């Protein structure tokens, strides 16, 4: 049961253009979302997060949008740079009543930015 889905395994974008990575989730109890970038042979690196009380969060070239009614979030990268080429994971965490805070990750989208 895949609660967090990234339906596009790969995406290619020209340098300088916008990259849009999408993520869908099924659990309405998710209340905190993060995006991570992963290079080969490295651990995931945190990019940006958003709480369910917001619908947008910006940090430099990265913006995350959350549409709670559609259970959809997206990551926008503007402008895209060749160094952005990596695998991007979205992750979600449900409201915890037990004290456990665990993240459920999507399967990732491989972004390639073409020079």
């Amino acid at each position, binding site marked *: 049961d895949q609660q967090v889905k990234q339906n596009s395994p790969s995406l290619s974008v020209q340098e300088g253009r916008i990259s849009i990575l999408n993520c869908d989730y099924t659990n309405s109890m998710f209340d905190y979302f993060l995006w991570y970038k992963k290079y080969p042979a490295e651990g995931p690196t945190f990019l940006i997060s958003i709480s369910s009380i917001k619908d947008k969060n910006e940090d430099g070239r990265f913006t995350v949008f959350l549409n709670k009614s559609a259970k959809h979030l997206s990551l926008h990268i503007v402008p895209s740079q060749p160094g952005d080429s990596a695998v991007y*994971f979205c992750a979600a965490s449900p409201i915890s009543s037990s004290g456990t*805070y665990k993240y459920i990750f999507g*399967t990732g989208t491989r972004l390639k930015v073409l020079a």
Partner: protein
Amino acid sequence: DAGVTQSPTHLIKTRGQHVTLRCSPISGHKSVSWYQQVLGQGPQFIFQYYEKEERGRGNFPDRFSARQFPNYSSELNVNALLLGDSALYLCASSLLGTNEKLFFGSGTQLSVL
């Protein structure tokens, strides 16, 4: 400041053996979580520890166990290794162990032959 450090970086074991993976969190972080990443998939939650107590456990068999030490470092142990345990094992630390960003180490690549 040092990030999350994991050792060893690579490990090759045979079926039935036991393995211990180690993790040192970022200084000041009190929570450590372990994730397993199989090729082509996203990381999957195994354990969370906070202040040396187990906070939660994912859908993994009892062959998997972990602990957190007084200095907040952590070990993940896997007994009776199976071929399917081959994966990248990631350790992540966070300050308070609540809904906050996780800082990941580079992982331990385990191959079971």
